[in-house]
């Protein structure tokens, strides 16, 4: 149990601090959102790549910084950027999911063509995996790619395609071999969102915002060369990508900042006779959440350490998504309760607290509990892979395999 950083890592932290001090004035205001980045953000991203604070481990020949992987250095970068409230490098599905996939399984041509522009924020991607009929059972997807000379013709529908409206390109799972077993008939294609036959419709969610889309394909023509991996191996290729998505959820830093905002709310807001914090029942709930948060935070450190040391924390890693999403949801629930009647206000209402963010978060986090493998799928994974319990025939074999 050594919670101090090595001399090398301490020196690295100082470097980051020096960089931040020198360059923070150049940081974009809005941060690296999912949409198409501003010119300012693209310039900032280039600066970060040049210093190794973005695209850090991506080889130089593909436009990255080319450093050796060091999970602690990545963490230090994240910590210091967060502490300084300086936007980190761009975050997008292209960067977090497509780029690692290409690095692992793309052709040399694909790597050279797509990785550089993607990490620089010049090309925006969206993900075409889920379909209305294929959620937990993703491998049952029905979007068809039929051969037509040197092309595929794609017909079908995807859902949950966030950023589809802004995206230049899509990485997409399609069924190329309908006669094969469901996992074996899928291919992984990349193609332009400008291709004729693509229609994107915003998908409004319970929060009232259109964070996602539905994307429809009608005779969309894609050259066969735009396949990643081999034909029929798309499921295998996608797994490489999904691993990366899984890791994005349950960041203890985000949980902590939500918790601190809640504690601050309870310390400052009054209700009835005094501060909300003086209500012993609500305070007791706050303390329960604080203890859980501490447990999740240290669990995160344990997972990180294991990974930094080349190991795998097993169960401690497998439970993160389930527990972190639930905890985030409970933090928002307490905030709403603590606000009493004020807790129901939303959008641009007078007397709104935190811009309605607690209700927004309460709903969005329920979406996170469901998305990326529902809580039920997570429990199957924990039981089967974490505890070695027997499989139920045909249940959750797909997510469970990831």
């Amino acid at each position: 149990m050594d919670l101090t950083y090595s001399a090398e890592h301490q020196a690295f932290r100082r470097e980051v601090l020096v960089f931040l001090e020198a360059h923070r004035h150049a940081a974009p205001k809005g941060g690296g959102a999912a949409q198409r980045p501003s010119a300012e953000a693209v310039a900032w991203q280039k600066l970060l790549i040049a210093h190794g604070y973005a695209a850090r481990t991506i080889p130089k020949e593909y436009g990255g910084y080319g450093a050796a992987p060091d999970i602690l250095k990545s963490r230090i970068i994240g910590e210091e950027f967060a502490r300084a409230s300086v936007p980190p490098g761009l975050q997008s599905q292209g960067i977090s999911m497509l780029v690692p996939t290409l690095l692992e399984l793309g052709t040399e041509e694909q790597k050279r063509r797509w990785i550089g522009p993607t990490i620089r924020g010049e090309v925006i991607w969206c993900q075409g995996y889920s379909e209305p009929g294929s959620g937990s059972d993703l491998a049952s997807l029905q979007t068809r790619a039929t051969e037509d000379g040197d092309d595929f013709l794609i017909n079908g529908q995807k859902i949950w395609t966030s950023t589809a409206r802004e995206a230049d390109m899509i990485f997409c799972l399609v069924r190329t071999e309908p006669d094969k077993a469901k996992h074996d008939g899928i291919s992984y294609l990349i193609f332009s969102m400008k291709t004729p036959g693509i229609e994107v419709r915003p998908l409004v969610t319970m929060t009232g915002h259109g964070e996602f889309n539905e994307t429809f394909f009608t005779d969309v023509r894609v050259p066969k060369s735009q396949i990643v991996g081999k034909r029929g191996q798309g499921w295998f290729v996608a797994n490489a990508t999904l691993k990366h998505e899984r890791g994005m959820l349950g960041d203890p830093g985000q949980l902590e900042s939500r918790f601190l905002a809640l504690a601050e709310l309870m310390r400052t807001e009054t209700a009835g006779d005094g501060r909300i914090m003086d209500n012993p029942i609500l305070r007791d709930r706050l303390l329960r959440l604080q203890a859980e948060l501490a447990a999740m935070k240290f669990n995160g450190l344990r997972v990180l350490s294991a990974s930094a040391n080349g190991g795998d924390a097993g169960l401690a890693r497998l439970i993160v998504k389930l527990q972190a999403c639930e905890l985030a949801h409970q933090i928002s629930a307490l905030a709403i309760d603590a606000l009493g009647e004020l807790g129901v206000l939303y959008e641009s209402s007078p007397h709104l607290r935190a811009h309605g963010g607690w209700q927004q978060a309460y709903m969005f986090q329920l979406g996170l509990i469901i998305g990326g493998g529902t809580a039920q799928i997570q429990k199957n994974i924990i039981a089967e892979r974490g505890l070695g319990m027997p499989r139920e025939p045909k249940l959750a074999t797909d997510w469970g395999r990831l």
Partner: protein
Amino acid sequence: MDFGLSSEQRMLQDAVTRYLSEQSPLGHVRDIAAAATPYSPDVATGLADLGVPGVIIPAEFGGMGLGLLEAALVAEALGFSVAPVHFAGAHVMAPLAILLGGSDSQQRAWLPKLASGAARAAVAVSQAVEGRDGVGVVARDGWLDGTALFVLDAADADLFVVADTTGALHLVAADAPGLTQIPLTTIDKTRSVGELRMTGVKADPLPGGGGRTTRRIIDAGRIMLAADILGAGTAMIEQAVAYAGTRVQFGRPIGSFQAVKHMCAEMAAALEPCRSLVWYAAHAFDHAPDESTLMACHAKSHLSEVGRFVARTSTEVHGGMGFTDLAGLHYWFKRIGLDRQLLGGPELVRNEAARVQGWIAV
């Protein structure tokens, strides 16, 4: 001895449910939710034809003269259909305030109009539930000053029933000089909640409108909100069960998976006893005055807790579809979310239940 509904009671509830399923389907709810004011005059008119605005108003004033149990059954039906109309404030608390606290002339002036739906009343008693800095209405010599938040059924009101800082009640005409109405936007676009700002507003005090009357109308309002949650929760479970029966993943309807099945069973097991609790609380309001406040508190707080669980779990059963606007399930989710907080969240209400029983040392 019969702990259950009479055939007349069932008929009343069925009539409202049937009317709403025909005239206020989800598409209509969506339209109202997207409009500026979360209130459907058309549905309100249709419900007035069924007598809903006068459900608890005595026949001598043109109402149906029924009890709070019948009102709760209507509330449940409204919650079941997330009907975008007034009820707890306009058709239960306001007329009750005038019945219990109003003078003969006040009753004659307002109750017939409220019963027919010709006039609408809103209720501003939030500060009697929980004080809040900068909020409160002070009465002096028949004039009101101050701010009231979370006015129930505010949209389109002709009359406001307003509690002052002493808990006494006043009638205020919507067009009274010095009165400003501000709509409050909440998560729920099917129910209207507002704010009133008053600067030297002429008020007509209810002579019997002291703390006891305020207590009674809050009890009644809480039972109505509980019944609304009951209806909304019932609808959510029905939708979850139906969805689980048709949605196929891994080659089976997801409702055949034990995890999904047990989620539905847990919802039903939690909600079903609530039905009896709401019935009894409403019955006790009229027939067992000693238990009335305690049962109103229990109904409100317990339904709020169970409602939150049902809202969340039925959404989970729907998977991603539950999170989208496509299924529209979120209208019920938000209705339950609103009902939970109005007239006091569960912790606050349970604290009152402790006081009523003398469990809190003074």
